[in-house]
C-alpha cells in the first residue's frame, strides 16, 4: 500500500508546498470540486467554464462510475 499522507506542517521554507501527489489528483479536486463562488473577475469569463477546461484535460477514457454522494 502506498501511504502518501502528508500534513501542512512539513514545509517551512518559502516554496510552494509540493506534495508528492499526481497532478490529476489535484486537478480533479481544484478544478472539478470545491465551492463555486463567482468573483467579479471570474464572472467575466462567461464563455470559459472552468469545468470545460478540466473536461478537456480529464476526458479521454470512459468513466467507470458517475460521481455520486451518499451521506
Amino acid at each position, binding site marked *: *500500500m*502506498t*501511504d*502518501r*499522507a*502528508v*500534513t*501542512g*506542517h512539513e*514545509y*517551512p*521554507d*518559502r*516554496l*510552494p*508546498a*509540493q*506534495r508528492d*501527489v*499526481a*497532478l*490529476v*489528483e*489535484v*486537478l*480533479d*479536486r*481544484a*478544478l472539478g*470540486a*470545491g*465551492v*463555486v*463562488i*463567482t*468573483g*467579479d*473577475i*471570474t464572472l*467575466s*469569463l462567461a464563455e*470559459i467554464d*472552468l469545468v470545460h*477546461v478540466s473536461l478537456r*484535460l*480529464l*476526458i*479521454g*477514457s470512459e*468513466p*467507470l*462510475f*458517475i*460521481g*455520486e*454522494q*451518499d*451521506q
Partner: protein
Amino acid sequence: MPAGGNAAGAERVNDSLGWYAYCVVPARAELTLDGLAGVDPPFGVEVMVSGDVAAVASQVRLSEFGADALKRNLEDRAWLERTARAHDAVVTRALEAEAVVPLRLCTIFSTGERLLAMLQEHEASLVGELRRVWGRAEWAVKILADPASAEVDTRADLPASGRDYLARKREQRSAREDALAQIDAAVGEAHARLRPHAVASALLRAQNADLSGRRGWMVHNGAYLVDAGRVGDFTAAVGDLATELRPRGLQVELTGPWAPYNFVTTGGFEP
C-alpha cells in the same frame, strides 16, 4: 501585508492587483501562513475576516490572473499545474483550522472590498458548510486492477475447427466475466468496509489514464470524509484491505489528508 517585492532586478510597470480566494475557514482560525507562497509567487497568503468566517487569500497580478490572462493561462498546461498545486498547497495548509471549505480554482476579485462583500453575502451558507466538515478531512482510496488478470487464454494450441474456435471464445468470455465479477465484488466489499469509518463518502469517476500515467484499470476511486479522531481506524482498515487484495491482483492506494473538496456544495449559494 503582501510579502516579497518586485521581481529581482526587473523594472516593473505598476501592475494592477486582484484578490484570489482559496478557501473559507472559521474567523478565529489560527493558521501558519508565513513562508507559504501564493498562486502568484511574488505574493504570500493572508486571511481576510468577515463576521464568523474568513477567506484565505492572496493578491495576484491581473496580468496573470485577470479575465483575458486566465483565458490564455488556463490552456497552458504548465501554468495550470503550477497554479493548481499552489492552490492545493494553501488549501491543505488551511487544514490546521477546525474546518476548511475549499473554493474552486481561480475565484478572483478585483478588490479586497469585493471579496469581503462576498463573504458577508454568503456568510450563513458558508457557516453551514464549515459545520458539515468541522474536524474532518477527505481521504482518497483507489483500487487498481491488472487487465491481464481478466484475460485468460487457457490453451496454447490452435483451434482444431471452427466449432472449437467458437467454444474457446465462449470460454474466454465466460472466464473474463467471472474475473470482472470478482473484481466488482471485491470493490463492493472494500467500500462496505471503509464506509463505516467515515462520516460520508463519494464515488468519483476513474481518473484519466493518459493524465495519470497509470497502467491498469481504476476500478474504485472513493473519497471518504473522516473525523480527525477516526483517521487511525480508517487508515488501518485501508492497510488491511491492501494486504487482502494484493494477492487477488488488486492494488490499493491511499492519499490524504485533503481538504474536503468533494464534500462541500459545488453549486453556487442562494443569494
